[in-house]
């Protein structure tokens, strides 16, 4: 019988308004509480539910949309910020690549209404094509990156992000990971604070990024970084939790609970912001312990910064640069480093696991398409969607897949390079609208000899069935003008 005691403080907590929320729902709730008035996104695992949750809040509170792609989503949010309203754009890590053009320029412009970008990384590639680290984008554009470690922090930091955005005149990234997005835990929620529009502020030197304006703005950006660092020296979102002095751990985000699981009593500096980093605080903390470990998923962002400060930090030597962390991986790292005693293996009998790759559903219309593709004997450039699964046996119908909308451009290149087989591109309806249209125009313009197979199943299926311009419905389920696939592809005059 498994029995657990209930403590008094738990009983007290129930008096507050607490509810179980996933990280994504908590980010949405935080944005709603912060008075967000415009939100936009393109669906992408694991970020999809942020906008789906936001769309459940009253329509008079905020406007929420599925955009055709992440760049459009960010541009919509930037526009709302220009107009003086608080705005949010959300996307998965690779979505930020699509939006990067707008993102990098916006960093110079700064905000009028608070602007928050919720970006969800996917360490371990549960459903992605790479595992890039969004914190490097924060460093790249010199903007603040907040990193929640659980759903409660997801709410609190998202809320705070809007205030900091306005206070420091910067866009703020809230960086999540798959584990944060899809873990449900108890969250104490608050009320919404209305932030009425500040109105558009006419200031071309700040809002129009021609070279003459951008040059001085770069100085403003660097000054902003210095002020952010100053703020982070004492900000309560960074927590110094004391413990032993033989070693200390600098960590952030979803790594923090793993560290605590393994080392409940160790000294930990838990950073709420993983970019920029407060120099003074880091130096003082590192001096308080004999050895410093950095536990961070993916790239050694914090570790490199510590080393640049001349601090002998240890990290990627013991904790991998690839994949998702788990308590086991963190434990193994500390054991390897000699920081803790190795524990006896706890693994029981392990039969060989059955391979169970995801498959196309029974009756999936992509099945016949790829039977025919296979029979056509063509070289096939694939794209992102359920149909990417057709690269596996038995359909085995896709030769390449790069990124959203790449298929048509890739096919043009293969055809122009003289592939020995006829060249075909396969692309889904949502992906086509996202990034395929410019490439199709290119193909027609340059008279490429390719076949484009547009797999129109009338939905964004891979992420769980979101609407897009071709479905004739908006995020909030309202009727909308339907973008007809045929029209996009009609022969030009």
């Amino acid at each position, binding site marked *: 019988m*498994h029995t657990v005691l209930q403590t008094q403080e738990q009983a007290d907590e129930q008096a507050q308004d607490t509810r179980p929320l996933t990280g994504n729902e908590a980010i949405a709730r935080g944005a709603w509480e912060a008075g967000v008035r415009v939100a936009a996104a393109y669906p992408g695992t694991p970020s999809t539910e942020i906008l789906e949750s936001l769309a459940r809040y009253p329509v008079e509170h905020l406007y929420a949309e599925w955009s055709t792609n992440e760049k459009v989503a960010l541009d919509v949010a930037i526009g709302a910020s220009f107009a003086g309203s608080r705005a949010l754009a959300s996307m998965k890590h690779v979505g930020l690549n699509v939006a990067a053009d707008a993102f990098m320029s916006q960093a110079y412009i700064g905000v009028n209404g608070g602007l928050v970008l919720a970006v969800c990384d996917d360490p371990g590639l*549960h459903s992605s094509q790479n595992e890039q680290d969004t914190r490097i984008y924060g460093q790249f554009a010199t903007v603040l990156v907040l990193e929640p470690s659980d759903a409660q922090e997801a709410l609190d930091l998202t809320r705070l992000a809007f205030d900091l955005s306005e206070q420091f005149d910067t866009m703020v990234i809230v960086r999540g990971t798959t584990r944060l997005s899809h873990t449900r835990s108890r969250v104490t929620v608050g009320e919404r604070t209305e932030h009425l529009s500040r109105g558009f502020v006419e200031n071309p030197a700040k809002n129009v990024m021609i070279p003459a304006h951008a040059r001085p703005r770069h100085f403003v950006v660097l000054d902003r970084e210095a002020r952010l660092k100053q703020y982070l020296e004492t900000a309560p979102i960074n927590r110094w939790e004391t413990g032993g002095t033989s070693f200390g751990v600098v960590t952030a985000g979803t790594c923090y609970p793993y560290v605590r699981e393994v080392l409940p009593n160790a000294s930990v500096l838990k950073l709420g912001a993983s970019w920029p980093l407060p120099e003074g605080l880091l130096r003082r903390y590192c001096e308080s312990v004999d050895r410093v470990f950095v536990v961070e998923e993916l790239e050694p962002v914090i570790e490199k910064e510590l080393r640049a400060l001349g601090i002998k930090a240890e990290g990627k030597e013991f904790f991998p640069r690839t994949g998702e962390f788990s308590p086991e991986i963190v434990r193994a790292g500390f054991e390897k480093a000699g920081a803790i005693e190795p524990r006896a293996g706890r693994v029981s009998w392990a039969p060989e696991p059955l391979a169970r790759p995801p498959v196309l559903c029974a009756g999936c219309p992509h099945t016949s398409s790829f039977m025919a593709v296979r029979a056509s*004997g063509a070289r096939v450039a694939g794209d992102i969607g359920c149909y990417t699964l057709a690269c596996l046996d038995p359909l085995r119908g896709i030769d390449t897949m790069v990124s959203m909308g790449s298929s048509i451009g890739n096919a043009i290149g293969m055809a122009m390079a003289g592939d020995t087989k006829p060249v075909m591109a396969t692309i889904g309806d949502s992906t086509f609208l996202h990034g395929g249209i410019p490439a199709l125009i290119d193909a027609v313009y340059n008279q490429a000899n390719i076949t484009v197979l547009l797999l129109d199943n009338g939905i964004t299926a891979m992420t769980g069935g979101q609407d897009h311009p071709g479905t004739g419905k908006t995020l909030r389920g309202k009727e909308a003008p339907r973008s007809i696939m045929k029209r996009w592809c009609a022969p030009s005059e």
Partner: protein
Amino acid sequence: MSGPNPSNCSAGGVQLLPVAAAAKAREPINVLIVGVGGQGVIMVSKALASLAQSKGFEVKQSEVHGMAKRGGTVFSHVRFGPQVWSPTIPKGEADILVALEWAEGLRWLPFLKPDSGIFICDTKRIVPPFACLDRHPGALLRYSRETPAEVKAHVVEGYAIDATRIAEELGNVRAANVVLIGALSMSLDFSAEDWEQALSEFVPKKTIAVNLEAFRLGRRWVERARTAPPDAQPAETPAPAYRPYKVRLEITPEWCKSCDICVKLCPERCLRLNAERTVELTDAAKCTGCRLCEWLCPDFAIRVHLDAAEAPGVVAAAEGIRP
């Protein structure tokens, strides 16, 4: 955690038994729920998480979406206690493993606590298309071969329940996960009434009655298993016997008109058109003698002969040897 004791939880309220030392009491209970997309793994974990939460525990429930909908593996970690750090259960730390599908249960076995973990598994088998990709005669299904008896010998406490059949008999196959919730409830310290209330919130309104019945059947199944272990499971069906043969392709080049149909549709992709544009076999080892080319050829240019081979077929099949 003491051993199984059905009388503690068959009815009545929560018993707040102290667990070992005070420090130990801060360790959460770890329940890992696994299955295949569409089976209702998330529903089980939500019901458990909501129940634990209503009892004032800190709860973390972690799952991964994405590919899950398309017949892939689905898993959900539920941890509850006075304090929970990691959202995921470390390997070898799960108190209870609930599996809605047989092979998935086996996949996650290493997560169970070796000395006290409880294994609750539906014997339902969902065979992925991938497991059937072999046209060789006597081919073995690429699916886990461990029997419930074997698995039970490796865990401290194990229940292999034919929950899907129980649910089918109730008239709603989708209630199989609730049968397993019933079984799970026998190993946790929440009252049956609390469970039933939590369940009523998570199943569709129209199916509450059938689901509560499924829940009770799951409880009764475990109760009975604890007092009188069920009979040994029926033996696995042996691999099919067959008369071993060698494949020989007889191609009449004069009749081949290079239509390419056989090349395109050969499941093993072992045919091609040669320089003279007539069909030829590229890789004899790959050919399974499925006769697809023979049946599809409009000009009777291919004939497939299955010549007798020497090895006794029954033995070959049982050992999984291919002719």
